[in-house]
């Protein structure tokens, strides 16, 4: 079965407004694509499908949870919540937009950030202030000492970044502040914060890859 659609046309309307009538995506939906079919089965709650999803991605999901959260028990709770969330959102997976691993890790990161933001731990004044002279504001924050213990290599790599990139990563990525909040805290334009965050994350990855290669 299928739904019939027609190809859209791209026309230039006389007044200059460009209209784009899009291809109907269902025409190209890769219904035989294995990951798409897997997520359809996950959406139906099939245990075998959920087990397959777990076996493929649990190690990655768990490692990321350990990076963000303070102990193993909390990380395991987060993994359970994440897989329930993956089940609830399984019908939204579209392989034309992203690979399944990208989708899974996006859901994971969003859940962990939401979890951090809900935590009531207040940051120590000097932990936020030492970078830019800003006073700490309300917000969730894993203690810097814990962060150091859990993520020694990551902390080392963070220290090699330019100050702005390091600060925005710490505040947005680990402390759960929104980008707008970071922009206000640093009195920097939102676009500048986004660019710094994006470049910093990419640099961390590049340097992490080099470190890993150096040991192999």
């Amino acid at each position, binding site marked *: *079965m299928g*739904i*019939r*659609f*027609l190809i*859209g046309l791209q*026309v230039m309307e*006389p*007044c*200059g*407004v460009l*209209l*784009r*009538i899009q291809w109907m995506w269902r025409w190209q939906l890769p219904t035989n694509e294995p990951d798409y*079919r897997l997520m*359809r089965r996950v*959406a*139906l*709650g099939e*245990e075998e499908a*959920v087990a397959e999803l777990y076996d493929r991605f*649990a*190690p*990655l999901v*768990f*490692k*990321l949870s*350990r*990076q963000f959260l303070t102990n193993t028990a909390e990380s*395991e709770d987060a*993994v*359970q*919540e994440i897989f*329930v969330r993956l089940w*609830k959102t399984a019908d*939204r997976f*579209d392989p034309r*937009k992203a690979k399944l*691993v*990208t989708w899974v890790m*996006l859901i*994971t*990161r*969003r859940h*962990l*950030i939401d979890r951090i933001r809900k935590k009531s731990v207040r940051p120590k004044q000097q932990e936020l202030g030492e970078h830019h002279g800003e006073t700490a504001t309300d917000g969730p924050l894993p203690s810097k000492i814990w962060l150091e213990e*859990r*993520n020694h290599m990551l902390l080392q*790599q963070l220290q090699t970044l330019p100050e702005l990139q390091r600060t925005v990563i710490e505040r947005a990525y680990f402390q759960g502040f*929104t*980008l*707008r909040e970071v922009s206000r805290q640093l009195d920097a334009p939102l676009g500048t914060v*986004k660019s710094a*965050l*994006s*470049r910093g*994350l990419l640099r961390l990855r590049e340097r*992490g*890859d080099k470190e*890993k290669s150096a040991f192999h």
Partner: protein
Amino acid sequence: MMTTYEQPDKKQLLELAVLDSHGLLEPLESDLFNSAFLNAPVTLQEEIQKMQEELAVDTSLLPSDLPDASLRRRVLDAVAKAADEEADRLAPLALIGARAGASRHNQRSVGTSGWRAVAMVLFGVSVVLAAFSISANNRADDITKYALNADVAQTMSDLVGTEFGEFIRNPSAPAVGLERTNGDPTGYVRVAINERTGAGYILAIDLKDGEEFFIQGMTPDGTIIELAHLVAGNTPVVAQTFSVDIAIAGTLTYRAIDTTGKVVWS
């Protein structure tokens, strides 16, 4: 003077892609990124997908811990429990519109997982119908039969696709209903446009076999814009997406014309 929607340039889009893959964009920003991604050239889309995949699988800076073996069973049990709770909540919806005899027969022939799937499909469809202000009473019969006979794993995508989620419960995307100009009460056509992004969605239910028309939008100055061309097929629901300049997204009125140019829905 109307302005065209500014698609982010490649550099901006790549930056947004990095932030999106780390879950750092707000929901609206993420929607705008998705919209910009869909409008980007295929080569750029592929570049972004590859980059996001590399970021997703990168473990170079992650701790080396692995989950305990017992976590697997706990996760499976947690998902099963959540699914059962959802099915219990939705089960009454699965009987909406179904004839009592048919439903009893179906309850004998459809296992628990089948009813769970049907309930989820019907819930999804009822949400769509409610969002588009369509009474479910008459439609539920056809949709129930369709869902029970169809590959339910495909049904939601087949019926309304994955894009409809962007329009449901979205205050920036009000839906407008069209009615047949000849007074025939059968069928429904609904148009929704996200006024923040210009992304549009058309939903048509119970069109006549072979029915064909063009949905048009009209700006306040009388300019007519063709939004979509719909042809009724062999399923009860037809849906299509489109996009327009955000400058006019909130100003359009709608109608449908047939192949002779006659207005048939307004």
